């Protein structure tokens, strides 16, 4: 049995502020294998953003262990450069640095990780071309549209060739059409590169379209409520959305989330 790529072992995160104590996630455990495309869905406040931030060492767990390729993330020290290089994080809010051009923004991880040389420069060119932004590579974030900003955010997270992509509702702020387009582009990228992807969304349709497995999370406290295998054929296409099986999955997941919502009201 191969070692899982990512392993969460009874992870708990408690936030303490002056006013209150919040248990963001409690006793979260799961394994993700290499090359999996996994989604995290659930109502707001269920801790999905917390989970991937814990994985990317943006915050530290209060209890429990997190393993990447069998190696644990240190609990007190900062994560090791080798481990962090394996991951690319794509944020919900367009998070480009406004004082850098598109190209400079995309190259930022390379500068931070100290990756130099033609191979990496070519990577930058290739990725910019892949999302059709070559014309705008010297434009500033304030000069390009929302969809473009999001595309730049995606390729920035990929420029250092990470094995794992962590995506926090990356297409949430976009309109329907752009989002569908980007979903297809993402599936294409995944097919070609075989990266391990964790995708957070509150959009059930998106989750089913993209992922092979969906973890449903609940609130109070944030935890994993259900694990649903999405057994639809690949490659996935947009017209699958109206098939019977797809709709059944939609109902199942929506119900699961609905139960959580109802239980909140009770």
């Amino acid at each position, binding site marked *: 049995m191969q070692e899982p790529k990512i392993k969460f072992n009874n992870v708990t995160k408690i936030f303490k502020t002056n006013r209150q104590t919040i248990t963001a996630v409690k006793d979260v455990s799961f394994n993700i294998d290499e090359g999996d495309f996994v989604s995290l869905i659930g109502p707001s406040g269920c801790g999905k953003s917390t989970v991937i931030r814990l994985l990317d060492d943006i915050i530290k767990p209060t209890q429990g262990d997190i393993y990447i390729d069998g190696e644990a993330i240190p609990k007190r020290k900062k994560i090791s450069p080798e481990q962090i290089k394996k991951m690319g994080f794509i944020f919900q809010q367009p998070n480009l640095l406004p*004082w850098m051009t598109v190209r400079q923004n995309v190259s930022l991880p390379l500068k931070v990780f100290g990756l130099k040389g033609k191979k990496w420069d070519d990577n930058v060119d290739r990725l910019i071309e892949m999302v*059709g932004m070559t014309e705008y590579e010297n*434009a500033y974030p304030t000069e390009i549209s929302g969809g473009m900003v999001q595309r730049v955010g995606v390729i920035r997270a990929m420029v250092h060739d990470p094995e794992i992509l962590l995506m926090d509702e990356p297409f949430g702020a976009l309109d329907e059409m752009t989002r569908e387009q980007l979903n297809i582009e993402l599936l294409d990228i995944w097919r070609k590169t075989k990266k391990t992807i964790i995708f957070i969304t509150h959009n059930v349709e998106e989750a089913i379209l993209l992922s092979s497995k969906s973890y449903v999370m609940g609130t109070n406290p944030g935890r994993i409520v259900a694990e649903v295998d999405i057994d639809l054929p690949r490659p996935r296409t947009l017209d699958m959305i109206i098939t019977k099986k797809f709709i059944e999955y939609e109902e199942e997941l929506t119900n699961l989330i609905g139960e959580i919502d109802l239980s909140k009201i009770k």
Partner: protein
Amino acid sequence: MTNKKPVKNKNKKRDPINWIAPIVMLVIIVVVLEVLVRVSGINRIVLPTPSAIFAFTSDAFLADLWFHFLYNFKVIFVGMLIAVTLGMLLAAICSQFNIVVKAITPVVILLVVTPMITLIPLMQLWLGSNPNIRILVVMISCTPIIMLNTLTGFTNIETSKLELARSMGASKLQIFAKVIFPNAMPQVFTGIKLGCIFSTIGSVTADFVYGMQGLGFKIQQYTKYVMTEQIYGSIILIAIIGFLLYKIVAMIEKKVVIWKI
């Protein structure tokens, strides 16, 4: 695949009206004043004609006024250079520790709000009559405001940008150089522009109190000898120094803060 709205319109105010209108305004004012003053027969002691001001001041400038003009310019320029360096350095150091920021901000605000020119007479008492003291005066006049604005700039940063840096495992130095520092630039430049104003005030006030050199001192002299044209002329010269400084800073700002249209 169609890309929607490509590059947004860079609505830069390159409208020619922005430099034509002020010049036209100036010409109109000068002409109107010239006519009014001549016609109304106002005493030249109170308000001389613009042409007289220009004539007398040019004479004075070629004689010895240029020396005082350059003196003020040098004092202000050097004083500001030191103040900007010092102010930003202090702010950079203080911003590293949250406790220090909380403790020192009220002190800096107090220094901003209390006119540093109150120390001018005492400085003469402490340090004598060296003309270079005025550089020190300029320095203390503008360092607090530069430091305050820089400190605000360094500490006001969006969490999302810091998260971005952490997601790349960036070191503290990398975060400061690539994220915190550029992010603070707009605020820093506002502080420097205000610093220009305070330093001009400081320099001229020092001239008045210490005498001997500088355009402020010359104004006092001209007042004694009722040379009103030169008084107005000197005031205009001081305004020019301040304006030049301000515009230089604004120009540098446009080059550095490229992303704020």
